[in-house]
């Protein structure tokens, strides 16, 4: 597993040991009462987690293919439901997608292919202004125009 | 015969593998035999070509003639704008495509 960008939790070691709880599947999570980390596949309903957000520290959303944008909706739905824990995008995550992902509520990223730190920083800082509200709380331009 | 074609990365121009370089003219295309995939990967990786692919062509006195009409249009240019093709002075150029 590659480096995780932005995670408040300590990175797991390559062997998978470390302080982070393993993210279980949605089915397993709904069965287990003590898991604090879950992994959501693109075709799974984020709303199934809503009753359990209080006990989750980490929700990892899978991006098996960068074209599959379902994870963006899942992320926003979870933040809209009040989830405050770590929301991680894992998989085929391209550097040019990070800004959108952040806006949808992701705060950490586990891309399969390593990313260049400088390019990551540039991508995230590119846009000062946004046109529409999203999960990041950034004021859309119309709010700046009218207060 | 099998020939390689693609586009120049920076300019977008249609190019044809001429044995050791990429030419803009299909007449220069060489038969790559069984080596097409290997050449393609190498050249793409070195960015001497973009989005290359292997196509069938027949040998004619005028040079290789791509088997598919699409690649013949690529080789010449738009048949409806002879002035924008590689052969603006040749009134038969469009016929070659069809």
């Amino acid at each position, binding site marked *: 597993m590659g480096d995780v960008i932005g995670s408040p939790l300590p990175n797991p070691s390559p062997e998978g040991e470390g302080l982070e709880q393993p993210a279980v599947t949605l089915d397993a999570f709904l069965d287990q009462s003590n898991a604090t980390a879950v992994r959501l596949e*693109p075709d799974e309903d984020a709303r199934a987690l809503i009753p359990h957000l209080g006990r989750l520290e980490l929700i990892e959303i899978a991006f098996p293919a*960068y*074209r*599959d*944008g*379902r994870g*963006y*909706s*899942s992320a*926003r739905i979870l933040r*809209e439901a009040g989830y405050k824990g770590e929301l991680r995008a894992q998989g085929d995550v*391209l550097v*040019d*997608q990070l*800004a*959108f*992902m952040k*806006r*949808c509520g992701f705060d950490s990223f586990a891309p399969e292919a390593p990313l*260049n730190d400088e*390019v990551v920083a*540039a991508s995230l800082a*590119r*846009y*000062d*202004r*946004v*046109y*529409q*509200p*999203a999960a990041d709380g950034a004021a*859309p*331009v*119309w709010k*700046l*125009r*009218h207060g | 015969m099998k020939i390689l074609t693609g*586009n120049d*990365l*920076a*300019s*977008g*121009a*249609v190019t044809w593998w001429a044995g050791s370089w990429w030419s803009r003219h299909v007449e220069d295309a060489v038969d790559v035999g069984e080596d097409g995939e290997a050449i393609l990967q190498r050249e*793409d990786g070195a*960015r001497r070509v*973009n*989005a290359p692919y292997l196509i069938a062509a027949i040998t004619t006195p005028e040079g290789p003639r791509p088997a*598919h*009409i*699409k690649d013949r*249009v*690529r080789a010449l*240019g*738009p*048949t*409806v*704008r002879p002035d*924008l093709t590689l052969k603006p002075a040749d009134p038969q150029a469009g016929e070659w495509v*069809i």
Partner: protein
Amino acid sequence: MYKYDQYDQAIVDARVEEFRDQVRRRLAGEITEDQFKPLRLMNGLYLQLHAYMLRVAIPYGTLDSRQMRMLAHIARKYDRDYGHFTTRQNIQYNWIKLEECPDLLAKLATVEMHAIQTSGNCIRNISSDQYAGAAADEIADPRPWAELLRQWSTFHPEFSYLPRKFKIAVIAADEARAAMRLHDIGIQLIERDGTLGAAFYVGGGMGRTPMIAPLIKDFVPAEDLLSYSEACLRVYNRHGRRDNIYKARIKILVHELGAEEYARQVEEEFAHVKALNIDPPAAELERIQAFFAPPPFDAADVELDRSDPDFAVWLDQNVKPHKQAGYAIVNISLKPLGGIPGDASSAQIDVMANLAERYSFDELRVTHAQNIVLPHVAKRDLYAVWQALAEAGLAEANLDLISDIIACPGLDYCSLANARSIPVAQKIARRFADPARQRDLGELKLKISGCINACGHHHAGHIGILGVDRKGTENYQLLLGGSGAEDASLGKITGPGFSEDGVVDAIERVTDKYVALRADGERFLDTYRRVGFEPFKEAIYG
């Protein structure tokens, strides 16, 4: 028309720099073509048959002379001196160099233009009625809402990796001049009990499986337009098919769920989304509407001098009534006999820019039929405008006639095509070259696509032609009876296909049959709908 403020400009400028960096990384080999492709597509840059093709956005088809002149400049400096106006009111350049594209986009940004989201699996250019703000039959100018939708959809973080492309049209009149029902979302502004709102049609489209969008919600209050759209998109993003590129449009989702179930899911999501304060305040709409206030009309109504017969013909065919007395809507045909449908040279683009600035309150429109409109021309200026157009080869008096053909670029330009479409269009125009014959045939919307992707809207043609590949040769299928207007219908395939010359002959047999069967005042489409398919099928195949 809308003018950028500092925020709009900052966003476009940031995009220019972002793309410049992405191109640099591609040229330096830091990213592969596979990684670069979605990035360049979201910036409207295709790798096409001859070179890179750039599709520049013309939001809801509206632009001014300064922007038009820049399009001419781009054609001269970065391309081969012409541009192609498309069926989604955009412009395409076919010979762009990747290494020059960042500079080109920087120049466009200086006149508030861009190529953002003109390709890719995201929300594309919002299209609208080319007569907006000029036609008498609209209940409001739809373009402020189109502008709201444009801003809402630009770099929308949740909807940039949809299952497939997404096209929205906004109109405000019953007469549907923007093929609204054939869009992924078609919005018609309507009034109910004195309140402004919109009817939402979702799930239209052409391509492999053409569908007319069903009505999903009959009235959405105007202030909820964006949150309702957000709900529609979210349901699509979550549930649209991603297993098969040919089944990935929203029309398939709506069809497979059924309109009722889709509407129910949207309603559920809408209830949730509405609480998120997605919708801008009324002040924002008012701010935008101010840009679309009517121009300072001051020309008196005049009696037109029709003594020049060519001018009279052009008046009757290409000039439409304006809601303001003393004014008229001028249609500029980009379908001259022997020309390429939708193409204009840089010189012609400059002529149109100058005419707009001088005679049309500095405004032009691009239509989905690949023509140009000068929306506000004083009647007293019509003769001067016509003379200038005639001198520039832009006065073909064929609006909506058989030679006013919508044609995709086809195999001459497009790597997706199976057959060339432009030569067929040219042959048809030549066969029917006699202007009197064309006027006698009357309104006959002929649309040609070079492949099943239907960029030429062939399903919506009164007569449609689809180019196919038949064992390595170009072959053409004929369709009859389609319409993209408010009486939307999909064309029916007549039978076996034809060669290029064969399809021209077949069309002539169709039009001859129409002339033989028509009742007084009937267009071809009316006669077809009255007598049915069989008489025409027999005329074609014997």
